[in-house]
């Protein structure tokens, strides 16, 4: 099969951030207090990270599409 283009290490690092924040670090944020805007801390944390994850992926998107552009120019 055609070799596919691998994602850049920097984009992968950006993709790892949401995993650390929403998955691996669960023991640090799984608590009720302090409640923020009336929402338990763990739920609030996840809601924030849904938005922040989208921002991480937006940065990764920019990185990847910039790379694609320079690649197609050099070819």
């Amino acid at each position, binding site marked *: *099969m*055609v*070799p*596919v*283009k*691998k*994602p850049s290490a920097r*984009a*992968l690092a950006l*993709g790892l951030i*949401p*995993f650390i924040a*929403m*998955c*691996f670090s*669960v*023991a640090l944020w*799984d*608590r*009720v*207090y302090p*409640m923020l*805007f*009336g*929402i*338990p801390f*763990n*739920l609030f944390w*996840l*809601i924030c*990270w*849904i*938005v922040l*994850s*989208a921002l*991480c*992926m*937006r940065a*990764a*998107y920019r990185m*990847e*599409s910039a790379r694609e552009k320079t690649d197609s120019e050099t070819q």
Partner: protein
Amino acid sequence: MSPTTVALTMIFAIVFIGATIGMLAGARRKMDLEQWTVGGRGFGAVLMYLLMAGETYTTFAFLGASGWAYSRGGPTLYVMAYLTLAYVVSFFILPQIWEVGRKYGMQTQSDFFSVRYGNRYLAGFVCIVGIASFIPYLQLQLTGLGIIVSIASFGGIGRTPAMVISVILLAAFVFASGIRAVAWVSVLKDVLMVLAAAAIGIGIPHIYFGGIGPMFAALAHAHPAHLTMPGATADLGHTWYVSTVLLTALGFYMWPHQFSATFTAKSSDTLRRNAVAMPLYTLTLAFILFAGFTAVLVVPGLANGDLALLTVVRQSFPPWFLGLVGGAGALTAMVPASIFILSAATLFAKNLYRPIFAPAMTDEQVAKLARVMVVVIGIVSLCLAIYTSTTLVSLLLIGYAGVSQFFPGVLLGLYWKRVTTAAVFAGMIAGVATTIFLMLSHRDPWRGWSAGFVALILNFLITILISLLTQPSQQGEARGAHARA
């Protein structure tokens, strides 16, 4: 008009508008196999977004997530995390899958395995595990639909007639317009679902407690342990959370319908942009959770947590709104059900029947057979949903753990030249067998770890180890391409 009439009228109106949109979606196009299964690879970012959202937010998200918030508490948070992370994973694999899909004309997940590994038994195995995993999922959607419509109509229409009518409608629009129908019905469904979720999630805490903050304060006071893990359960703690989130985030795009929906995109860039925007749709789930948590205090003691959301909605809102929720809920079941039927029918005709029984079939004949299979699968799943109803959720979890076992074959197949057919086959069989054994012997979670995750780790290890011990065959690609042509 009686409340039943109002609610029923609303439900029927929404469902029929949805079905009509679906019927018309492919009206002006010639429905060959390529159009029917992957929409001619022409979906732009917006339609793609709505199709993926439509496939993802099923009755399980609607009833299941709120049901978990009600009956289990804290562990339900895994739903928000895994969906977000599934889209992060998708950023790194879907554009690549799309590229090879276009190059080799792939339409199904099984096509990917057939081209990459050039082994029809492996492709057939993937196909069978995929179809077997669909069945409980499909059954769950139909059962959920029956529950939603009968409760939302105040019992005005029974579960069985509701299921029969909806299966006839969805089989009709899938038959006529294929994947385009599913995408366009999703548009209506997503709009209604977001509106209903927001109204429920903000409205219900407001009605009973004067707001979301006071509701959570009251819940934290009444049940201090409910809002964190393991909540109301004994063994769904942090280890379970991490392993389940990883399993489901990695396995998410291994569902055959999610995988093949990739091929509908217009470009790999569409998929990347989609991966950036999809997490935001997960925010609507927060509203569903708010409603589920409120139900703990308002309608305590329900035997079936899945009914919590609808029970509290029924006693809090006027009949027309209940009808709206019922109609949106019905579409929430019909959209995923229709894509399951479409994918299973295509897999059966293209990847199981043709390679094994009738290699000479043309694409047109495959398309015809797939359409016939839509009707057959519709009838079979309807019978299953009507005559069996127990332990569906456990079957569903087996399905999830089962399809996740495709992940090593896909990931390593894309990025590691050294991976061999024998290794992927061995890893997959070990993974599927481990999953079934642990789950059927009630060892899930196993020592706190999600059983499917344990199986996935084993699968990865076996695949890598055997790959290093065997020689990669250079013929895989050539044979796969030949089989396709």
